[in-house]
């Protein structure tokens, strides 16, 4: 389904925000929001960026879209014409034609749609920006897009307030698709939705990907959602990427202690699996003053002396499996299914009635 050539390659990306204090707003330090992040996204795949709040996943995504100008690093994007461009230092004018190829789906469907614009205005705005001036063409395209995301084209004269959260998210998706982008950054696209609606939107995203050959950079904190939609997962902690692997492998056998802890913190909808997990103590480190050595060492149950003094490097342990941990080779960590008691069939809680 996907050819393996990368559509996006991020190399040693850094984004520091200055901390300004006092009357003269002098810079007294930096928040290291993204600190040496490297990854690639292959054409047609879904790469998930996961981590807790403040880990830099959204900042990374925004740098990729050049909503922020990165402090350092390269963002290599393969455009539709086939040439590779470094977005990191590009001027606004040079960026503009590339912007139509990458679009964003936002988290909050209530805040991301202008209440004073009709669906037609909202969904056709990107076309106006990118120079589709023929109104009839725009109306036709909006009707087509609304159909694509499962909304009735008749709704295009309505305002967003008439729609539920799930429907609004569909509108946001239609807007993102308006210019036939190749890369879509979905920043917590389903976290504001109710569970039953969440499933509908995830299914829609999967279906659209297959139909339109889209590539997703899927930013999320909910690992069970991530497991559903992604081909590969990258885990971030305090501005750094700590692990990157194929979804199945990462969940079955994580290599970084933080990934393992994250997997075990998730409450499973399975009452018989309760009380079987390890709980991570302490709090996420401060990105303005990260700890010495490995950023995770104060909370890590496996930390040894070297973790306190030396920062681990980002290395490829096996082909396609990257990790940032001194002890990755020696540790055997628990994956997602570890909480289940022996002999429990994994899907017993699912009622067996037929269709839904």
């Amino acid at each position, binding site marked *: 389904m996907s050819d393996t050539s990368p559509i996006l390659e991020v190399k040693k990306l850094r984004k520091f925000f200055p901390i300004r204090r006092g009357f003269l707003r002098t810079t007294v330090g930096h928040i290291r929001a993204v600190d040496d992040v490297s990854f690639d996204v292959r054409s047609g795949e879904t790469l998930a960026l996961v981590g*807790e*709040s403040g880990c830099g996943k959204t900042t990374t995504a925004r740098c990729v879209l050049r909503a922020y100008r990165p402090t350092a690093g390269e963002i290599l994007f393969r455009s539709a014409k086939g040439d590779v461009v470094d977005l990191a230092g590009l001027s606004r004018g040079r960026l503009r034609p590339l912007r139509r190829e990458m679009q964003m789906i936002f988290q909050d469907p209530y805040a991301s749609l202008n209440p004073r614009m009709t669906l037609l205005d909202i969904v056709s705005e990107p076309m106006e920006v990118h120079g589709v001036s023929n109104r009839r063409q725009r109306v036709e395209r909006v009707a087509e897009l609304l159909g694509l995301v499962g909304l009735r084209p008749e709704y295009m004269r309505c305002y967003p307030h008439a729609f539920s959260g*799930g429907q609004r998210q569909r509108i946001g998706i239609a807007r993102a698709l308006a210019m036939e982008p190749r890369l879509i950054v979905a920043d917590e696209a389903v976290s504001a939705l109710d569970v039953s609606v969440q499933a509908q939107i995830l299914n829609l995203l999967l279906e659209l990907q297959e139909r339109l050959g889209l590539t997703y950079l899927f930013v999320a904190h909910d690992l069970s*959602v991530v497991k*559903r939609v992604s081909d590969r997962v990258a885990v971030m902690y305090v501005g750094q990427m700590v692990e990157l692997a194929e979804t199945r492998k990462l969940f079955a056998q994580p290599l970084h202690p933080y990934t393992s802890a994250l997997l075990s913190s998730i409450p499973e*909808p399975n009452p018989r699996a309760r009380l079987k997990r390890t*709980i991570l103590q302490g709090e996420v480190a401060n990105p303005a003053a990260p700890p010495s050595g490995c950023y995770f060492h104060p909370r890590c149950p496996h930390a040894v002396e070297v973790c306190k003094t030396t920062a681990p490097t980002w290395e490829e342990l096996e082909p396609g499996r990257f990790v940032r941990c001194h002890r990755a080779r020696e540790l055997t960590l628990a994956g997602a299914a570890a909480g289940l008691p022996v002999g429990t069939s994994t899907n017993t*809680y699912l009622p067996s009635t037929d269709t839904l």
Partner: protein
Amino acid sequence: MAGEPLLEVNELKTYFFPDEGVVRAVDGASFAIYPGKTLGIVGESGCGKSVTARSILNLVEAPGRIVSGTILLHDDFGTIEITHLKPDSRTMREIRGAVIGYVFQEPMSSFSPVHTIGSQIMESILYHRKVSKKEARARGVELLRQVGIPRAEYRMDEYAFQLSGGLRQRAMIATALACDPKLLIADEPTTALDVTTQAQILDLLRQLQSQNGMAIMLITHNLGVVAEMADNVVVMYLGRVVEEGPVDDIFYNARHPYTQALLRSIATMEDEPRTRLPTISGSIPHPYNRPHGCLFHPRCPQFMRGTCDAHEPTLRPLNGSQSVSCFLYEKSDVRSQMSDGVAGRGAV
């Protein structure tokens, strides 16, 4: 169920009366909470779970009010009917905080930004207990320590904005526990938190419960959290209880089509990558536009024409402990009697 319930809610109806019409936020909810046990209330947004909790504390804001039903609190002193109390009455204020503690969903907006954490915990202690300020402060420090806040004396003099989300929620729990409540109502206590912090807070709640034997009413939309915490579960949909029972029965033997659909539609860690989720068709109806008959029938895969859209099912016990409100489980003779009744009325 062993023992006497601590709190009994019967046919509670809490409606809101804005200018546009009537919103039946809670429309006939019944359940009981037992000492030392955790009752999980689950449902999607707008199902009335938070309004139920606020009704128990008599904190329903205008234009809403409790229309009918009873809320019985069985305290050491006897039974108190909460719906008969005025929201600002002395007894009600005694109950809030001292008998029932409340953990709000949003720890940032539920603390006062201009008072220190310490003064807000002490306020509750000084109101309910005859203690000096010094003793109240000592109790406050002890509480903060108990909920796992490092450097508690120092944190007492800090403001809510100086604490991280996890610490703030811990402080919130400390405030709710200040006067040893018999019941702790936690309204989405971990929704705003990250998973690792969530695991810490849930663990903390469990620990505190085993120490002081309080009952917990846990309101959440997260079925994982419920599976982890609850002894009994109440599933709500549009203000009604559709199913109720022990946690194992709800998760492994769900009977109501809505509960079944909800369980199927959640993504879990056991799913294979890149697979479609079964979904519930349609969306939650608008509050002004409630369906007739069973509220779930427009979305129900087992909808029976002529029954589900015409009559309202009632919550009936299935076996000893599990109850469900669905015509699929009502005996056929009951169903035919009901349609006879309607036909008879039609003839008149």
